[in-house]
């Protein structure tokens, strides 16, 4: 089954350069391992939410606004696409992601499978 991992966290978290570097290294290791195992198909980190643009089209009119679709304490900062046997495997893969320790990871199955 295919799952999307939404990597969420507070992007304004005050981390030291060392902590930031450590999370980066750990994430690289997680990506390498999950990819080699064949459970991670794709994924990437996203630019900060201030670079986001949201659009809504209503009655033929396009509304373009600056920023993410909702202001929340934690923001989506990246994603990974997993191919796993079942939810237990997906949760296990997600729980070893370094951001699980400081933020939240939402695991959702794809609609059509």
């Amino acid at each position, binding site marked *: 089954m295919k*799952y999307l991992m939404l990597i969420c966290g507070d992007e304004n978290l005050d981390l030291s350069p060392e902590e930031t570097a450590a999370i980066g290294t750990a994430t690289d290791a997680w990506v390498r391992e999950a990819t080699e195992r064949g459970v991670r198909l794709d994924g990437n980190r996203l630019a900060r939410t201030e670079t986001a643009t949201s659009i809504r089209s209503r009655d033929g009119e396009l509304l373009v606004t600056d920023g993410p679709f909702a202001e929340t304490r934690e923001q989506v900062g990246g994603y990974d696409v997993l191919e796993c046997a*079942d*939810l*237990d495997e997906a*949760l296990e893969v997600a729980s070893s992601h370094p951001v699980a320790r400081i933020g939240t990871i939402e695991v*959702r*199955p794809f609609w059509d499978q």
Partner: protein
Amino acid sequence: MTVDAALTQAFRSGWGRIVATLIRTTGDWDLAEECAQDAFARALEVWARDGVPDSPVAWLTTVARNRALDRLRRAKTEATKLKEVASVPAPEEVAVDDDLPDDRLRLMFTCCHPALPTEGRVALTLRTVAGLTTAEIARMFLVPEPTMAKRLVRAKHKIRAAGIPFRVPPAHLRPERLSGVLAVIYLLFTEGYAATSGDRLVRRGLTDEAIRLSRLLTTLAPDEPEARGLLALLLLQDSRRDTRVDGDGRIVTLEEQDRARWDSGEIEEGLALLARTPTGGPYVLQARIAACHAAAPTAASTDWPRIASLYGQLAALTPSPVVALNRAVAVGMAEGPEAGLTLVSDLEASGALVGNHLLPAVKADLLRRLGHADEARTAYEEAHALARNQPERDHLASRMAALGTPT
């Protein structure tokens, strides 16, 4: 045996097994339930005509399985007509083993998967493992039937859509998942046990179901000490059910309960379970505490030092303010009210139980025993203002009255 009696018995022992077997073989929760229901409906007809078969559950399993295969076959034909790739397994590929006992354990673990909301876990366990109807479950939880139906549909949908596996979790997940199953059973029990209002009889069904499920779990997972601990705990608590409240709905404290009316059968079974369980976790410890009360012929002969020590172990294993408060009560009994009050002060300072009536109620009892009537009254008043249900408020009011008029 009459057909009705045979059906009732087969339902009690067979429903969960049949549903579990069908879920494993077809992967379809709704299909499993519907075919099990069909089988019981057929039995009503056929048994009345031909007599009750030698092994009713095996008969029902076969009928339910055939019905499921039939429906899958038909669904497959439809799918072929539509030229779609059949995702439904071909009936001949479906291996059906009769009633592996493991299936019900799988069912329990799946129903109690942590990815499901707690209320969904509880409802699904009662519906599929215990075989209660949606209407019965709704009544027990005091919610409208459509609400309960929606809960069940949602839980089953999530199992399918999110890919929650139908299995007994592997060893590395097992302790955590088992405690999830135990928590659901314990929640069922406390829901029924705590009920003191007019719906007591209906909700009493919940404690019975909890004990039945807990017993089933010890049969399916005989090597789990915590499963035995939970069953022992439920039996020992349940043994006091008839003495906790008097005829007018007033709370009777443990001290004042008529011990001759405690259910000796349940106590014996609980103590025997504990005797076979040398070590264990939080449920075993709580059961040992309940056993100290059950084994004491009079309130005065209660082994409070042992209870205090057990609460100490429990607090070390699963620290929580409620455990700490119970430990304060036990220490207050074992070493005297002053020692208990010291622990209560620590708890007050931590701010963990702010707004909970139990903290001032315990403090009041300890102060009363020290002879500090005025301070005790203030604490009882605080507890009285915070208590949520009427029997507890009445109990606190009578304690206050017993202190006499303010000096």
